[in-house]
């Protein structure tokens, strides 16, 4: 079973390496959105510092969501998804493999670039560390929850926008605690509670989301 997991992961990573444009566009979107805020709000250091946690987090949310449309769509179009559903291994495990590959390619780059963006908005030191940590815990949750939405909206017209409408309300708890963690540390408080909750969300979604996404895929392929 884990052999198949590794194969799915390996295959998706190989595909990402051979077609990196999709990866880069997600990252560029993230960077551009964050850069828009000073342009929209004004370059005052104080203001930017106050909104930094929210801005980086919302941008990560949106970038994550944008990349979700591609999670299953190419497999759906070339028939690989059918073969995956008919594989001799539990579908949730295979779906988890795809989600992990997706996160490594779309989520992890955001985490790695975030400190640079945080600096741009005036954050420093411990705050940046918490920013990275919160995104490290939170972006996998976004990928996991988003996979359920992506599975439900496979092949539908208006797919991307519909996916956003379905998935953004579910993202709110992650946003609240993720941005909250950064904001807490910036104000000199502890972020342990926030980060623990994010960790709990991660565990919960790893247990439940692959199963729900697999059901969604079966429903969409029916």
């Amino acid at each position, binding site marked *: 079973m884990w052999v198949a997991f590794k194969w799915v992961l390996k295959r998706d990573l190989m595909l990402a390496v051979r077609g990196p444009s999709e990866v880069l566009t997600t990252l560029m979107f993230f960077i551009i959105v964050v850069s828009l805020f000073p342009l929209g709000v004004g370059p005052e250091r104080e203001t930017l510092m106050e909104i930094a946690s929210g801005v980086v987090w919302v941008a990560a949310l949106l970038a994550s969501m944008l990349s979700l449309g591609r999670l299953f769509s190419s497999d759906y179009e070339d028939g690989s998804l059918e073969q995956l559903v008919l594989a001799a291994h539990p579908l949730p495990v295979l779906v988890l493999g795809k989600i992990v590959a997706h996160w490594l390619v779309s989520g992890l780059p955001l985490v790695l670039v975030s400190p640079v963006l945080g600096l741009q908005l005036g954050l420093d030191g411990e705050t940046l560390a918490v920013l990275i940590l919160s995104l490290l815990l939170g972006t996998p949750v976004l990928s996991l929850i988003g996979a359920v939405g992506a599975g*439900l909206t496979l092949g*539908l017209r208006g797919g991307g926008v519909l996916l956003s409408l379905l998935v953004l309300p579910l993202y709110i708890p992650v946003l*609240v*605690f993720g941005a*909250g963690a950064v904001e807490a540390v910036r104000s000199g408080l502890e972020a342990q509670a926030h980060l623990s909750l994010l960790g709990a969300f991660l565990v919960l979604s790893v247990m439940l989301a692959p199963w729900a996404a697999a059901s969604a895929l079966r429903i969409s392929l029916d």
Partner: protein
Amino acid sequence: MRLFSKDFWFQFASPKTFYPFAGKLIPWFAGVAAVLTLVGLYIGFFVAPVDYQQGNSYRVMFIHVPAAWMSMFIYVVMCAYAALGLVLNTRLSDMMAAALAPTGAMFTFVALWTGALWGRPTWGTYWVWDARLTSELILLFLYLGYMALRSAIDDPRRASRASGLLALVGVINVPIIYFSVKWWNTLHQGASVSLTSAPTMAKTMFAAMIVMTFAFWAYAIAVALYRVRLIILERERHARWVVELAERER
């Protein structure tokens, strides 16, 4: 005794039997709704005393609070029907979920709008990001998402199963979302006047709210039954009993 036999109740799981049954129930619930609304509004607007803090403007609460309660209650019921439909594969459960969604969304919208009406004279602004209003807003998005997914899928079976799964995911998330928003709100708001933090509610105020809640509940049932009959006719339009019904109506 017929009432105690399982078959008596299970027959209502069939759209064909449920259709006329629902039709008979609608006028009763509509009537109850109308009467209770009149009573509730009378108590709320004429009998309940003027609030020493907020004057008369608080009276919109008699619509706001019951609407908010109904919006949440209907969401849970809708998700229960959706889950039943998904697990037991019964068409009628799913049709009930579809019938309830627009009514639930409407109550959410009413709750938000009356919340704004209450907010203006009380806080000076039409909108505040307090925990309840923000949760209502998110609930509205959940309703709209459910309805949008349904309407985006042409195949009725995929539509019902997909929206059923979405409802299940939503209902698991609702407590988490509510908890997150509450936490977020206490952190950022500081001293805020909450709609339910009225120190003591006069008995008449409470009575009015309860009456209006039941009024809305009866209304929701009536409207949902009416809507589900339309959905039944549309989904089962190839069934013989529907064709015969249409012939008779002609």
